[in-house]
């Protein structure tokens, strides 16, 4: 029973990590239809910012969010205005190529600036709480907590505020949104800025658990892609639920199958993805995008 509980806790914590990491990717895809292949690199940049503050000012990565998020917002806003806006209406392949190029440029730029030496941040939130034989990792619980706060805030922002409603309107039908007077370029830049800020925040909070190095982004982008497809584009409850489902599936298989469990878990997660794509192509929770594209005028 202890083992089962521990597997469950490991799974939920892994799910929190996944959800925090893929949220920005999911919303950008959902609102703008852009698959951001530089997503992992944005996580990496956020992690490096957090490391700089940790190394030189001694700031805790969880506190550094206060600086990392605004900085990343500005980076995202500018990137959207200068680069992404020019390709957002073009075929999907163009934006794939642009963000792919961006990912190569960013990772190599960081490689030149910081070298390939792996870095790590220190946090005061470390160690473990034990209840009987079951342990709760403190850092991962904190990551889960921050992820929940960010998700709830984003959800409230999208549901309750005027700007949030504009973003959802732009996601659902761009033409109609334009007709009712929404400045699409501004909304897109805002969306991209917010999502990059969230993505950078994910980089900052996972920095105590992973080595930070210039080429860490690619596997994270792939994982974000999987969970987004599983959960539904831009769906916030879906991100959380999809992340946790995947985390628990991986954890259970990892613990109960010996020898090859961790490998088998990855296979299982992709089998799950294929099944979902065949049976529910809009993802488990639907999302910001309508199931059928509206007929463009």
């Amino acid at each position, binding site marked *: 029973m202890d083992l089962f509980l521990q*597997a469950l806790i490991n799974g939920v914590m892994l799910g929190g990590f996944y959800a925090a990491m893929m949220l920005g990717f999911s919303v950008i895809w959902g609102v703008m239809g852009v698959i951001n292949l530089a997503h992992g690199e944005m996580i990496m940049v956020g992690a490096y910012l957090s490391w700089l503050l940790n190394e030189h000012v001694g700031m805790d990565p969880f506190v550094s969010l206060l600086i990392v998020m605004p900085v990343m917002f500005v980076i995202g806003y500018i990137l959207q205005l200068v680069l992404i806006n020019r390709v957002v209406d073009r075929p999907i392949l163009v934006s794939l190529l642009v963000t*792919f190029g961006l990912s190569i440029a960013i990772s190599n730029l960081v490689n030149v600036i910081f070298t390939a030496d792996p870095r790590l941040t220190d946090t005061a939130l470390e160690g473990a709480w034990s209840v009987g034989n079951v*342990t709760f990792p403190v850092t991962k619980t904190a990551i889960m907590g921050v992820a929940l706060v960010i998700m709830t805030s984003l959800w409230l922002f999208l549901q309750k505020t005027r700007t949030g409603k504009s973003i959802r309107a732009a996601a659902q039908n761009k033409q109609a949104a334009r007709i009712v007077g929404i400045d699409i370029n501004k909304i897109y830049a805002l969306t991209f800025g917010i999502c990059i800020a969230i993505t950078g925040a994910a980089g900052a909070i996972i920095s105590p658990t992973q*080595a930070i190095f210039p080429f860490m982004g*690619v596997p994270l982008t*792939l994982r974000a892609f999987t969970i987004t497809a599983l959960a539904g584009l831009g769906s916030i409850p879906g991100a959380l639920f999809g992340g946790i489902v995947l985390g628990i599936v991986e954890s259970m298989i990892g613990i109960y199958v010996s020898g090859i*469990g*961790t490998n088998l878990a990855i296979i299982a997660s992709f089998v799950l993805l294929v099944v979902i794509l065949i049976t529910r192509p809009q993802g488990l929770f639907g999302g910001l995008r309508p199931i059928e*594209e509206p007929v463009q005028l």
Partner: protein
Amino acid sequence: MWSLILVLVLVAAACGSDTTETTEGSAAPATTQPAATDDTTSEETTPTETTEAMEEPMFAGTIVLGAAVSDTGKYAREGQDTRQGYDLWLDWVNHEYGGIAIGDDRYEVEIVYYDDEGDPDTAASLVERLVTEDEVDFLLGPYSSGLTMSTSAIAEKYNVIMVEGNGASESIFERGFKNIFAVLTPAGNYTQSALKSLADLGATTVVIAYEDTAFPTSVATGAQKWAEEYGYEVLAFESYPLDTPDVSNIITNFKNLDPDVFVGGGHFNDALLFVRAAKEQGWTPDAMVITVGPSNPDFAAEVGVDANYIMGPTQWERTMSWEDEWFGTAEDYALRYEALWGEPPSYQAAESTATALSLHLAIEAAGSIDTDAVRQALYDLDILTFYGPINFDDTGKNAGKPMGAIQIQDGVVNVVAPAEASVADVMYPMLPWDQR
């Protein structure tokens, strides 16, 4: 709509896998200028000529060696160490030693370098060029198992001897090649010294986790073999995929098995994940032996106090007690290296110098540069160097050299095994994480 999503997934997946390869190849294509032969050799020979004028040793001729080593790409750093190791030997053999002695004559040495960009295919075509166009007499190895794998096939095709010091994977030596020799300890023996010293301290059970790629698999299979040899009971043998972000489940299982020794095979990030996961779950085995990470000074610097007690294999450390008549002790070598390059030597640099030195000694023993004679001399070679014993077996692996083991003790990387090379005793068992 369904089909559209599926197509998108396929496109993005294809792009994603491209990303992996291309970003790892990194800036290479943009910045690459294949290091022009003329430039490199003139750089190498200019000082030689000056010294010649002063000391006037009469060289009877020139022996030309060739190497494709990364100057750009993902192995740029290690490639630089490799070149610096070769060049240290080159500087020494031409200026101090007076050239390679064949009979009564002395031969000057040149090394022709190309930049392989960290790509196995590029490396192979450059080595082909070294052999066919530059007509080098012998080849020195590139950095990494993968590049050694591809270039040694070219060496075999043209029947040119390649001596290498930076490809440890056993698969390199399992192809029946006659022209590949390696001075470094093969991957299967990485954990031997550590497991032996821990067995002597009373450890009896072990668990092994490894990334399922070529090198860690070799390390783990070897660890299993040596563990059984030293009387351990192997309680678990777990593989995990490349780029895994979390190893909590492996650690949860291991905690329940309660082994004395944990062996982890993987890369730097894996070492970090294992240490963090063990701490998170409050699990302290009596010893943790992890490849790649701990021997890198960055590891202790970044991980801090949690890095203490962690053990790892090492090919060479400057504190080892090896000594020879050419470069003196390991520390003498390190000082010479620092004087020449202004930074301390990594083990990649030391093994590169040892690579060139063993080829040099084999040529002298053979008394000619004839391929068959030098090959026989390499097989017969049995020497002790600043880098450790060198004695090639039938497949070209260095059967003579034990792998060292280090342990991080108060933030310092100390050699703890084998006994003849160690500077400190193993601290055993590990202190629990919260009592540091």
